[in-house]
């Protein structure tokens, strides 16, 4: 059951693909659960074949689930979800206006023509509203795909690799669009390999591997500890000894840099201890963990093994 702020909840979603001739089955998803809060942008990250696309297909109902459920506070997901496929498709010979009008009428949107024009203007496509979509660039098609997906006022948006194949300018533009959608209160599940975009946009990340969610990282969560980085001017053997009682996550081979996980209130004590043993600090600060670091932490050790 979803709470008020959770707009999309998946519980124990499972899917296996079978080969009827060899009786071999592949467990594409194995008991995946997740929640998406109102206005939250959640990245879905994992290597190829991890189950990202399968999860999206199950959420959107494109493929039948073997088990589990998708709920949206009692709303019909087909009415309350928007979907931006990896390769957006349109009726290419029709104009963006008529492409959107079809979807608007399917969803019984009141005054569909006005709603379509409003969204086309919002996404900067009103100047091309009568041009066949076949003449559109990839970036314009991506904008149109998003405009179409939010036309019926969904509570959550599922985006499959929206940055794939876009030039840097379009990526920046798309980032702006996604922030404006977040401001509208639309939650987004964003499957992407673009870790920089995940960093820029996401409030949380779901790491998926072999059909299982192996970690969820909340960027803005209130956590009791921080990662504190200290950089010294010269290596000093007394400093590692002073930090011996602390949880040192990493130390550079030259002995000049230390990353320590510590309760936030103890940061001044660490600085005092290092200075106290003669350590000459040139820089220190709380290290913000990035999606790339997290990805490396989660996936690379096993890949190397």
């Amino acid at each position: 059951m979803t709470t008020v702020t959770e707009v999309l909840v998946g519980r124990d979603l499972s899917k296996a693909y079978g080969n009827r001739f060899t009786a071999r089955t592949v467990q594409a998803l194995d008991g995946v659960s997740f929640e998406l809060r109102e206005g939250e942008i959640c990245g879905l990250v994992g290597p190829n074949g991890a189950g990202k696309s399968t999860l999206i297909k199950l959420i959107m109902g494109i493929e039948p689930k073997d088990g589990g459920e998708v709920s949206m506070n009692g709303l019909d997901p087909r009415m309350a979800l928007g979907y931006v496929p990896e390769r957006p498709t349109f009726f290419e010979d029709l104009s963006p206006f008529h492409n959107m009008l079809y979807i608007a009428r399917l969803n019984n949107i009141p005054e569909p023509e006005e709603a379509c024009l409003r969204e086309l203007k919002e996404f900067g496509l009103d100047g091309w509203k009568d041009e066949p979509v076949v003449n559109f660039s990839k970036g314009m098609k991506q904008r149109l795909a998003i405009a179409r997906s939010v036309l019926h006022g969904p509570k959550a948006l599922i985006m499959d690799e929206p940055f794939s194949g876009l030039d840097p300018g379009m990526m920046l533009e798309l980032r702006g669009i996604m922030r404006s959608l977040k401001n509208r209160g639309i939650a987004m599940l964003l499957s992407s390999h673009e870790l920089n975009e995940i960093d820029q946009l996401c409030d949380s990340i779901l790491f998926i591997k072999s059909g299982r969610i192996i970690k969820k990282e909340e960027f803005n969560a209130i956590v009791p500890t921080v990662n504190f980085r200290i950089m010294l001017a010269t290596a000093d053997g007394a400093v590692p000894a002073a930090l011996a009682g602390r949880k040192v996550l990493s130390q550079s081979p030259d002995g000049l840099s230390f990353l320590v996980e510590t309760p936030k209130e103890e940061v001044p004590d660490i600085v005092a201890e290092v200075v106290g043993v003669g350590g000459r600090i040139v820089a220190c600060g709380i290290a913000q963990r990035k999606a790339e670091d997290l990805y490396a932490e989660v996936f690379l050790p096993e890949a190397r093994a």
Partner: protein
Amino acid sequence: MSELTTHLRKDVRLLMTDPMFVILLIALAGIAFIVALMSCGGYVNSMTYGGDVVTQASLELKQKEALSNYWGSIAGIFMIIFTVIAALAMTGEKESGMLRYVLTYRTSKLRFYASKLLVLMSVVIMAMLIALVCYLVVFSFMDVPMLDLGTLAASMVFPFLIAMVFAAIGLTLSTLSDKKAGAVVASVAVFFILSLLSQMSIGLGIGAAYEINPAVTAQNVTEFIPLEYKLLIYSNPLVLGYGTTLMLNISGYDHYTNPHLFDPGWGAALGLAMALAWFGIGLLAFSRERMDKGWLTRLREKMRK
């Protein structure tokens, strides 16, 4: 606006923006014109070289035969053309992924599918009218006496039904293939298999009837055709090709070339039933595109339990 109307408006718009549609209509007009010229030539020829005394009744009979031959040829051409066109009706949207996208919304598949069939029906009617106009133009130009409108309309019933049944078969094939090329190949193959089966089953059935009763006539031949042949004959839509001569009441006494296989009313009902049956089979096949579990999958699961 109802959902069916929404799908219809979209399908009509797609049809009107497709340049192949205009080419198809021009090609159909050209073919119908050539066939009409050939039928008219045959009619004039039969009048010129006939040894009998020309009466109003013989004139009418000859012209009815010409009309029947005309629609026979047109129906043969329509069968293959409409099977192929219908086979492409869905595959275009399937190939692009648009069908899958549309079905992520709360869409009735029955209405989606019915819209395709209704548009095909409209194109069949358009093609029939073009063929009728070509016939009237050619026969008027040759300055031969014209049959009344009732006879002309009656002659169109079975060619229309044949075209509709083959359109429904083509639409069914389009639900089974994800590729346009595959759908075209399948539709041509199905057409030739049905043609072959029709000729074989009618030939063998009449042969078997003759063995049972050597005095068999065109009128009573069906009474002596064994049941297994009857099933093969009446399940094949090509049997409707015998309807026009019966409708125009010009079937002769030769049980091989003009067997009286059904009464016109019964034949029309058979044609309608075939169109509906293929519509149902197509709809069933289309249910494979179902996002969440369809009733067939649910039933299968219940049976497994």
